[in-house]
């Protein structure tokens, strides 16, 4: 599982310029201006720019509909710049750089910035929308049927056109033929005989009104749900398209005091902009809150909460051990096998290579689950095969050894592959020269092969390290962080920072995206520092050996 995730593919997007014929002079500016335009080049340009225009127009409609003018401006400017760039003949380097840069911004920079901005909010379950959303949710969920009131058969009707006319409710008093007509002004009885009542009590026709059928009514869904007919005890509302009930909104928002009042209990909850919730005097919060800016509190919580900062150091050390162990172990094993197969005396290398790559070819997701079952104490393959009764995931050290072992099995084929490639690039003359000089095999490996191998593989090792540092699946699909100390269910012996924080942010009461974003910024900082130091050292190494 050491596949580096970042791919250079995005940079390979073909710029819309046609293939340059070999032999044509490319150095002088005038020559380039007169380079012939090939049909394939023109077609590629047309199709790619057409796609750009198509995507831009497709994206513009929702932006206009949502009145997102900044987004629209960015869209227009980007598309215009792309057209300017690829229709002209100048700015050749930019033509190659722009596609990669755009993808970098869209898939790397924007998500990171979004994460960073989320870290300063309380975004999460119960705090997802705006304050207005919360108020609507509180009011509409507090509508209760007036106790003892019946439910009325309902027909939706209009005096005008079924698609646009103002709607009224035609309701029948249960058990009778008495029909009333209701609109926002209230309820009025209809003359007896003016309406035809069907078997279920529903009005099927009424003088002067067009009764809407289901299809027509459901097209007016919003108007129907919004229609509230005031009555003495509350208001008539629709429950679907064929029943109405007398309901009363128990809780209502009062803009004057910026609070929610409960008319039954008389309790009030005042809006608290700091926490994004309505809070009563006794500290009780209404469940429906809204998203607010909470400043640095997510960050201070990471640093000051004992539950988080307490086990942090231990987890960090194990996290490093896991990443180094996984990367180093797979590298050493993969390299040793590559060296063995590289030997000219080795027979049947192709068969070996094929077999060795098998673990790499299988989906790691499934393999992790299979390994988890193999480590089962009573039913697992490993204990049964060796006649052991080790509680693998029940003890700290055996669980750690087990996850590293699994990583080794999953990851070494990748290292074997890249090491094989790198070995073939090292000229045999070099090692032959050392043996002429009288160096032992070990000395020649130590002094020549390994350094040259490391020059080629260091960037891969660093990316593999960064990947394993955050290797969520490797832990979550095997031990899930177990074993946990009996007195602390939130941090286990095999927990990585990422699984630990996942549990903190999403395992508790609800998803806390703001908090999770703050923690991921911390992890980002750690990985970035480690990578920066490693790359710096690699560069120094390259200067020595290059």
């Amino acid at each position, binding site marked *: 599982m050491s596949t580096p995730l970042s791919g250079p593919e995005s940079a390979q997007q073909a710029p819309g310029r046609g293939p340059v014929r070999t032999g044509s002079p490319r150095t002088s500016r005038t020559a380039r201006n007169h380079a012939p335009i090939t049909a394939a080049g023109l077609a590629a340009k047309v199709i790619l720019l057409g796609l750009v225009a198509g995507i831009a127009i497709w994206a513009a409609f929702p932006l206009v509909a949502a009145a997102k003018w900044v987004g629209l401006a960015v869209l227009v400017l980007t598309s215009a710049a792309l057209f300017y760039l690829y229709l002209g003949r100048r700015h050749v380097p930019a033509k190659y750089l722009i596609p990669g840069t755009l993808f970098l911004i869209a898939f790397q920079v924007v998500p990171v910035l979004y994460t960073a901005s989320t870290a300063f909010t309380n975004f999460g379950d119960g705090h997802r929308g705006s304050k207005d959303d919360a108020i609507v949710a509180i009011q509409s969920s507090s509508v209760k049927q007036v106790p003892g009131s019946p439910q009325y058969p309902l027909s939706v009707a209009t005096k005008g056109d079924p698609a646009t006319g103002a709607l009224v409710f035609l309701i029948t008093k249960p058990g009778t033929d008495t029909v009333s007509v209701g609109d926002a002004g209230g309820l009025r009885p209809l003359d007896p005989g003016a309406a035809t009542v069907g078997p279920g009590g529903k009005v099927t026709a009424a003088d002067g009104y067009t009764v809407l059928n289901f299809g027509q009514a459901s*097209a007016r869904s919003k108007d129907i749900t919004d229609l509230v007919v005031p009555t003495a005890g509350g208001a008539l509302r629709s429950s679907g398209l064929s029943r109405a009930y007398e309901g009363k909104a128990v809780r209502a928002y009062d803009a004057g005091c910026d609070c929610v009042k409960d008319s039954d209990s008389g309790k009030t909850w005042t809006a608290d902009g700091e926490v994004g919730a309505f809070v009563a005097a006794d500290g009780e919060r209404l469940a429906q809150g809204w998203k607010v800016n909470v400043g640095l509190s997510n960050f201070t919580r990471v640093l000051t909460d004992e539950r988080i900062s307490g086990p942090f150091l231990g987890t960090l050390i194990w996290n490093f051990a896991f990443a180094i162990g996984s990367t180093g172990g797979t590298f050493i094993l993969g390299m040793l096998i590559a060296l063995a197969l590289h030997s000219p005396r080795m027979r049947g290398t192709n068969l070996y290579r094929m077999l060795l790559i098998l673990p790499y070819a299988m989906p790691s997701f499934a393999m992790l689950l299979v390994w988890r079952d193999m480590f089962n104490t009573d039913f697992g393959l490993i204990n049964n095969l060796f006649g052991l009764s080790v509680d693998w995931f029940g003890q700290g050290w055996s669980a750690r050894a087990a996850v590293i072992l699994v990583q080794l099995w999953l990851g070494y084929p990748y290292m074997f592959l890249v090491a094989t490639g790198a070995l073939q690039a090292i000229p045999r003359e070099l090692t032959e020269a050392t043996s002429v000089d009288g160096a032992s095999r070990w000395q020649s490996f130590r002094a020549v092969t390994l350094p040259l191998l490391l020059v080629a593989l260091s960037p891969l090792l660093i990316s593999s390290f960064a990947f394993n540092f955050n290797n969520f699946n490797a832990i979550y699909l095997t031990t899930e962080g177990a074993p946990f100390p009996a007195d602390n269910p939130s941090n286990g012996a095999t927990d990585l920072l990422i699984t630990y924080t996942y549990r903190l942010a999403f395992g508790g009461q609800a998803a806390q995206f703001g908090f999770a974003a703050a923690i991921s910024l911390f992890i980002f900082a750690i990985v970035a520092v480690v990578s920066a130091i490693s790359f710096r050292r690699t560069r120094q190494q390259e200067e020595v050996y290059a």
Partner: protein
Amino acid sequence: MRIRTAGVVALFALALAASGCGGDSDEPAAKDTPKAAGGKLVIWADDKRTAALKPFVEKFGQENGVTVEVQAVPNEDLQNNFVTVSSQGGGPDVVIGAHDWIGNLVQNGAIDPVQLSDEQKTAFNETAVKAVTFNGQLYGVPYAQENLALIRNTELAPEAPKTIEDLVATGKQLKAQKKVTETLCLQVGQKGDAYHIYPLYTSAGGYLFGTTANGDYDPKDLGVGKPESIAAFKKIAALGEKGEGVLKRSIADTNSTATFTGKKCAFLVSGPWATADVKKAGIKYDVSAVPGFAGGKAAAPFVGVQSFYVAAKGKNKALAQEFVANYVTKPDLAMALYQADPRPPALTAALDQVKSSDPDLAKFIEAGKNGQVLPAIPAMAAIWDPFGKAEAAVIGGADPTSTVTAAGKTIAGSIK
């Protein structure tokens, strides 16, 4: 030359773009024509239920001149995806899911209450209606309910055990006769399983939340960490790896049913979903209530309910209300869903229809008679993980007092 190239490219590009747009605007128009003014209803369900719903909703659509679309979303993503799209102001009109989602869906303003008449309510199993009632409001229309029961291999254990002690004695005897290798298949796993241990926990006197005056669960009265819970976990520890060896962490969700169908244990604690595998393995079985400890309280399994919800941000709420309140309450749909996934229907009329052909259902309902409704309050989400881990630790031999006290503190800490 240069200008001409640019012109050609721009012209083609515009043509391409225009044709792309044309395609976009044609599509909805074509869809709209057959059902002129009719509205559209979008339902989200998991894969199994999507298949069962399709014929039914097509009929509903044709009868009423509306378009109904059922979209399959994997069960594990359903709630989260729904909450996410709902907070963006979009999403389906109707959602199908477990009743313990209600707390979270309500706090995110994702669902609306449903108003049922009293006659409609009485057509349902009382527990099912209680399960979908939250803060005194009915938030969903239930269609199926489920709870744990004891499934036993009648060839190995002909008599249903009255108590856990009976069960352990029978299991030990079978083990001594080398007929089985495990006493009881009750899934625990490395991080425990609060849902499956709950009957034993309640029988030993433990509770999760107290109840308020009106019968709702009260998140302020947390039972984990209280002396009763410690006493309960002591009884569980006695059955654990360092005790009787009846409860084991090596038995997990992945192998519990398989061990039972492999005849390695005579007793399985599981729900209606396990019977399909048991039948397939050709095992003669019977279903009875999960037994409690001798002299203890009755073992109370959690009762879960599957339910239809009306989305608060749906485009067609009136139609959604109509569908959920007036169509889901009819037995036909409950029957169709039962055929797709045999869980006991929540509608009494539907249950009566299938009872005779599927005797297990009545037995599961009987086993759930003492059951407690799975709490739907958001605080319940804070229970699962710490409670399960405490269970796993205690079964593995950790000290019950300190373990449960710590779990109680963790849970209390994450309840707002």
